[in-house]
């Protein structure tokens, strides 16, 4: 069989690289099992808050100090208050975390915000002419969500929490300064060849 030497080289090069980096995968099964156990409904929902505030692990929060500080503020408030808060309702906590983790459908913006003791949380942005779309926290665990169907594109937005604007969503793709304040930005679709 006529093998293209470039193909063979590429194959070899990639395989060799993976086997030389085998250390990266050591203990992966255990780490995954641990994380999945953490997500089980029984555990405190504070872990859920941490998961929500740090969706893709270290790097993301580490990059934007301000965001980290704000998220930490939420976590601290949660830790202080959380112990006394009873688990509300019979719906397992895993469901609200899953809501965030569930692969979002095409053409959808999913907003998730931990906002304890907030009475009113909404999102304003370029997808709704900056008019509030309310988030809801049906099970009262302090985690507010909303789903908005949008065509693919770029969307700027901010949360309004009890009347105060907050523009540093940890789940954003990027941030911009607008009128002297932060806004969050997300992209839906794109980044390819129509993929």
């Amino acid at each position: 069989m006529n093998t293209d030497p470039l193909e063979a080289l590429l194959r070899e090069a990639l395989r060799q690289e993976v086997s030389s980096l085998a250390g990266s995968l050591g203990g992966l099964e255990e780490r995954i099992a641990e994380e999945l156990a953490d997500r089980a409904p029984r555990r405190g929902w504070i872990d859920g808050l941490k998961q929500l505030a740090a969706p893709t692990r270290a790097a993301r929060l580490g990059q934007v100090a301000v965001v980290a500080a704000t998220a930490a503020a939420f976590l601290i408030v949660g830790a202080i208050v959380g112990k006394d808060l009873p688990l509300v309702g019979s719906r397992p906590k895993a469901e609200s975390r899953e809501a965030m983790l569930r692969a979002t459908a095409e053409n959808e913006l999913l907003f998730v915000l931990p906002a304890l003791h907030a009475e009113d949380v909404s999102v304003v942005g370029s997808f709704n002419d900056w008019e509030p779309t309310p988030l809801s926290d049906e099970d009262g665990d302090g985690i507010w969500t909303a789903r908005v169907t949008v065509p693919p594109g770029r969307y700027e937005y901010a949360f309004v929490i009890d009347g105060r604007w907050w523009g540093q969503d940890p789940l954003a793709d990027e941030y911009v300064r607008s009128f002297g304040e932060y806004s969050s930005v997300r992209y839906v679709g794109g980044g390819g060849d129509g993929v």
Partner: protein
Amino acid sequence: MQDEVTLLRASLQGETAAWGEIVTRYKDAVFGLCLGFLRNRADAEDITHDAFIRAYVNLRRYRLDKRFSTWVFTIAANLCRNRLRYRRTHPVFEVETDSGGGTDPAREVAREERHVHVREALERLPYAYRAPLVLRFYNDLAYREIGDILGIPEGTVKTRIHRGKAMLKEHLGEERDPS
């Protein structure tokens, strides 16, 4: 050796040990995919981990009609794409050193160098060309499956691979001497 469907059914019932077995079977393939797409070890580790978490969490949505590998690879590919998008606005300024071994015999070193060169050339390709090449020549997938994973038509996959190889050859220039 348990068959995959049994393991998946057990995983669905919360048996993390069964999922662990799935991870063991697919982790090299997923890691290789991520490393190929992202060309960054730390990101590849992150995304490999996240991909298996997300696949487990969404296991209910996996339909047995599609190949499981396609499904897992699609999750990984999507996460990679998101990470690349994020990296564009939050670049890491570490140089990814692609260093070979220390006291290898000359032939080993020469082969290592060729590997290094082709990986560097791969890194210089745009994502749209790099991804199909990785799926084809690392993961050994059929054109149809590559198309499913990347969400592009089979014909486009073939074109991209063809052009991708041409671009690699260009970047490699004289160095790509088959021996």
